């Protein structure tokens, strides 16, 4: 399933800390929900706690997921389809600027 490319996932801020890497490759995931499941499998409870409101599969309000630079809130949310070569970015609310 899927070419050698797979899906690239980039992490920022607390997600980068939890993962210990700036980005990972995931061979295949049908949609964003499936991708996040895979990330929780790989990185465990800490990732789950950072992604979801406690005890649910609802994304925390402070979590942003972009697919190829577009927020999934403007696409189909967790049901947004993924394909080989997609780049997914995961990060919390931004807070720059003193």
């Amino acid at each position, binding site marked *: 399933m899927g070419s050698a490319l797979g899906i690239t996932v980039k992490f920022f*801020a607390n997600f980068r800390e939890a993962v210990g890497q700036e980005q990972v490759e995931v061979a295949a995931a049908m949609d964003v929900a499936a991708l996040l499941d895979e990330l929780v499998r790989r990185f465990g409870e800490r990732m789950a706690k950072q992604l979801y409101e406690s005890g649910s599969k609802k994304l925390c309000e*402070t979590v942003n997921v972009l697919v190829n630079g577009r927020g999934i809130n403007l696409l189909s949310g967790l049901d947004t389809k993924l394909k080989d070569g997609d780049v997914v*970015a995961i*990060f*919390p*609310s*931004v*807070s720059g600027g*003193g």
Partner: protein
Amino acid sequence: MPDVGIHLKGEVSLPDLFQKLRQDIGENVGAVGCFVGVVRGLSEDGERVKFLRYESSEDAVKKLEQIAADIEKRPDIWRVMIHHVVDQIAPGEDAIYVLVAGRRRDDVFRALPELMNRVKAEAPIWKKEVTEQREYWVHELAERK
């Protein structure tokens, strides 16, 4: 053309940016407004801050450019500069500089808060606060409240 950047500490300063702005200033500029964001020595919870660590994604410069360009295209705005320091920053040190040159003071007084609000809300820049007690990403602090 807006003038923006992401820098390490010591690479940028208000005097330098102001001087650069002055070197090419339109004859219709009557007002320059500047904002400097400084790291506070006390956290929101009153803990003594050791430092803040800022992190950005590679898209940050592009986003700062977009924010600056949106404001700079107003007829009464001559120039917008946004320069962010992304590094480990101690209390009393600067994290961001925003400068706006425009026709009248109202033009710059309106633009400055808009620019800062947009940078805070849109630029992919995060900060982790390290106090004497603990450390946390600032969005986590917001969540707890």
